[in-house]
């Protein structure tokens, strides 16, 4: 089982991104997904910068995949996507049907934002060149098991095991809205929220995270206790989505679990001080916000 690091979902200053990936070079991850997947106005790093980061990670022995925007709207975004698809060095992770159309015939990863809900769709993706699919976050263990068994030859399965869940995308920017700014002059407000902007219900319960045009879960999804089951199923890759703090500890906890050096309980205990709460409800086929720490193990 390989361990991957998903794209940074938030908008961080260039220096912070560079420091983050300089550290990642030393982390025990096998695959690193790079690039901006949420908003094309986030340009602290240009395309050439991302490729430079990619080269460094590749030199450090990581497999690099370039992730595409989840919501494509403007002509300029399409042109940037065409260039990315034709970068000639790194595979892409397609996150919408535009990238499916543009990467036809080339090997690619069908990202978590491609709606892959049955074996028929897995066959379609393989047929157009996918070499790996990432399970949509709202699917359960039961569905995953069936789809993984039914996958066509040459198609790997990847599951997001840690990170805030990307739940929705909109044309509207909710960060700008919270600041009373129009999207077209948003002042790049996302830079002020390296872990997104918390949204709570009127009784003060954390519910969602605002991240520009994206809404995420309030708490990170954490499937550490499902790791033995994921390994038994033969899942090929498990993914961790970066947070501004604590990501290295999370990577090491999952790595320890994969390598058999930590029990899931020990790995969970190592992560608990870093995050107030987790969620894992989708795994059992329930509401995604639920968190049910098993009492055994």
């Amino acid at each position, binding site marked *: 089982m390989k361990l991957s690091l998903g794209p940074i979902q938030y908008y961080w200053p260039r220096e912070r991104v560079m420091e983050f990936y300089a550290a990642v070079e030393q982390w025990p991850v096998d695959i690193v997904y790079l690039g901006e997947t949420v908003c094309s106005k986030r340009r602290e790093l240009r395309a050439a910068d991302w490729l430079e980061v990619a080269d460094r990670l590749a030199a450090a022995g990581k497999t690099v995949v370039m992730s595409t925007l989840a919501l494509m709207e403007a002509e300029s975004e399409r042109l940037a996507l065409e260039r990315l698809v034709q970068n000639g060095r790194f595979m892409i992770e397609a996150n919408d049907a*535009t990238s499916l159309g543009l990467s036809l015939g080339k090997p690619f990863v069908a990202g978590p*934002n491609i709606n892959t809900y049955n074996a028929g769709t897995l066959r379609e993706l393989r047929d157009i060149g996918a070499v790996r699919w990432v399970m949509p976050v709202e699917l359960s263990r039961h569905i995953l098991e069936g789809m993984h068994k039914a996958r066509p030859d040459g198609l790997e399965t990847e599951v997001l095991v840690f990170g805030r869940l990307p739940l*929705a995308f909109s044309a509207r920017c909710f960060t700008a809205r919270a600041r009373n700014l129009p999207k077209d002059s948003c002042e790049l407000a996302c830079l002020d929220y390296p872990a997104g902007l918390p949204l709570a219900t009127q009784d003060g319960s954390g519910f969602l995270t*605002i991240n520009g045009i994206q809404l995420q879960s309030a708490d990170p999804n954490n499937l550490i206790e499902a790791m033995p089951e994921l390994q038994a199923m033969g899942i090929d890759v498990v993914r961790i989505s970066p947070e501004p703090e604590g990501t290295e500890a999370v990577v090491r906890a999952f790595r320890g679990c994969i390598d058999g050096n930590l029990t899931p309980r020990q790995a969970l205990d190592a992560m608990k001080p870093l995050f107030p709460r987790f969620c894992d409800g989708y795994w059992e086929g329930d509401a995604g916000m639920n968190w049910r720490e098993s009492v055994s193990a």
Partner: protein
Amino acid sequence: MNPDRMELVCPAGGFPALRAAVDNGADAVYLSLRGETNARNFPGLNFDRKALQKGIAYARGKGVKVYMALNTYPQPDIWTAATQAVDVAAEEGVNAVILADMGLLRYAADTHKDLTLHLSVQGSATTADALNFYHERYGVVRAVLPRVLSMSQVAQVIERARLDIEVFGFGSLCVMVEGRCMLSSYATGDSPNTKGACSPAHAVRWIETGRGREARLNGVLIDTFKPGESAGYPVICKGRYQVGSCDDTIYAIEEPTSLSTLDILADLLKIGVKAIKLEGRQRSPAYVGQATRVMRQALDACHANPDAYTPRPEWASQLAGMSEGRTQTLGALHRAWQ
């Protein structure tokens, strides 16, 4: 289809709504079979096979087309039900099926070569390249655009897309890219993609408290309504929340409002939109009848003389009276909304 006309596509959650749509001037109606194969899977809604036959006969008799929406993403446990629904659509001779899932598109394209395919709004295709992918791979001839593009972006898409474009003209407003929203399953376990349900009724609770009337969704407090305040159905994207460290509660995502394109029908015609869809398979026959009647009149006026088209005040007021929160928006079509 006449290039100078936009088809009026109206919702039919059941036979009475279908009849209301047909009698009030729909060019086409869209409907679904019962169950989890469609994105409006609500109790008491949609058609069994017998009702479908009756509906098709009624619509046909008046020269109105029937489209069948099969627009969830069927998981393996309902895959057979989904392919059977495609078979039923083909056997009953609907004018098109409206699909979103790539696996199901492949099944329909391979199994029923004469069946006309439309891409559902749930297919999340927002660019010409995405639309052309569906056109070339599955022979999709029409697509419903997600409600995320500005007017100029819609025009750009139409210029390069090799299929017909349908847009939402009136009704509830999805704030998120359709087919890409899991807010409902995050709170309740059921989403449009998986169960054809957003904010399912079984998860909704209304609770009277000292602070007002609480609307909860599987325990999550979506909003609190003061006495006399009009209380809409609790969907996550139209609740009031606290953002960041601010104590105020605000409509952090969207206010209760409806989409209305009444004012811009002539612009939509000019950029090449081929069909206008009314949202609302969950609505009453009276609502469907009235919305259809108003939009029929507006479209007729628009088609007769696009350059002189101005919506009549009574059309606007009738639609306003049927809108959520009694307010309307152009949504993403108007850049400032974004």
